[in-house]
């Protein structure tokens, strides 16, 4: 890990037009202080890769409301009417991806695999424009890997090596995006001394994390 930053300093790392993978599922597990710092700095033209865009006023919804997002790659935007409205108005381009395909594409990007062969989406709109690969007589869609300039990870516990653990459903996309961001910034609810998180409780090894957000309290 390279160090612990305050939210402002973390946001300063992110240039206009960057691509961001952001953890969370309907804002559960989303690094809110980091989002707030991006909104405060007004970093625009962002591409957001995430499960959803939450709802107005929460998590990724704040980026949408602030007009900072140009493109969204997500599985679901239905609970954020602003995203839908901006998509219809042409202000945001949305790529909708089945949730299981989305997380697996991110994993492939982070783990050096060339893509994902999935039955999901075969014979539907999702198949359009994609390579179909036959394996042992069965057909699969070839879905390409995803990476991003930054992964913004929401965690429960961290230590100063950057090891992260998660709590219940706040885990979701977080440990996977931590593999696929070229720079990984993690915001944890608490930071504990090195050695306090048992090795078996670590879900994201510290070697993946570039920066930690300083503690809120």
């Amino acid at each position, binding site marked *: 890990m390279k160090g612990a930053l305050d939210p402002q300093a973390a946001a300063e790392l992110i240039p206009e037009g960057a691509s961001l993978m952001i953890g969370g*599922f309907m804002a559960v597990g989303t690094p809110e202080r980091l989002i707030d710092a991006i909104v405060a700095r007004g970093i625009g033209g962002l591409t957001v890769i995430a499960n959803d865009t939450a709802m107005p006023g929460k998590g990724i919804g704040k980026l949408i409301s602030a007009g900072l997002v140009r493109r969204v790659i997500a599985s679901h*935007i239905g609970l954020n009417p602003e995203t839908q409205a901006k998509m219809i108005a042409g202000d945001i381009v949305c790529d909708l991806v*089945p949730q*299981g395909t989305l997380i697996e594409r991110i994993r492939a990007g982070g783990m050096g695999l060339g893509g994902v062969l999935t039955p*999901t989406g075969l014979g539907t709109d999702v198949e359009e424009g994609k390579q179909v690969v036959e394996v042992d007589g069965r057909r699969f869609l070839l879905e390409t890997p995803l990476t991003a300039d930054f992964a913004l990870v929401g965690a429960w516990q961290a230590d100063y090596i950057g090891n992260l653990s998660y*709590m219940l459903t706040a885990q979701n996309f977080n440990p996977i995006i931590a593999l696929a961001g070229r720079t990984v910034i993690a915001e944890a609810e608490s930071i504990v001394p090195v050695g306090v998180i048992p090795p078996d409780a670590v*879900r994201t090894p510290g070697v993946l994390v570039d920066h930690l957000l300083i503690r809120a309290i």
Partner: protein
Amino acid sequence: MDAKELIARRVAREVRPGSLVNLGIGLPSMVANFVSAELGVFFQAENGVIGLGARPPEGMEDHHLTDAGGGFVTAVPGAASIDSAMSFGLIRGGHLDMTVLGGLQVDEAGHLANWKVPGKMVPGMGGAMDLVTGAARVVVAMQHAAKGQSKIVRRCTLPLTAVRRVDLVVTDLAVIEPGEAGLVLRERAPGVSVEDIIAATEAALVVPDDVPEMILT
């Protein structure tokens, strides 16, 4: 009993002891209310929990434990939390015994459309495509008609969720089992005649000699 409760009570009878079941948002989520705890059923939410319990008492909500709709839930003893890659690995890999989803249309091929009304509603497919592709058993729980139009149609006019044939359709009028030979009418809702159902259905139905009345939980 209103139509939704009737559907939920009938679907509950499809839930097998000790099985792993995913319930979609809305009507499908009502099914849990009618499944006895003694059956040892584990409910999964695709955001990463196996062993979903009821809504917690007022004041005991925890923002680390929500269902796929973002609502607060509890965890039963023996619950497990998993990341999104594992969650969809379980779904896609056939480890999920049953999924119950809402529908917009089901057609004579047993195909389901439930994620998009082009030009009107484009919320994204979320986990639906993976669920319909991968679950061992797919049950559609929906009203038989919407705005006077049958949702059991000859051929889906809305974009398909998957090309996999769903296993059962439960509506407020009927239980229908898609098969090789088409849509087989298996059961009638209380007080509804076979003729009523045929009249309310756009698709052709295969009608066996005996179409018993639904038994509800």
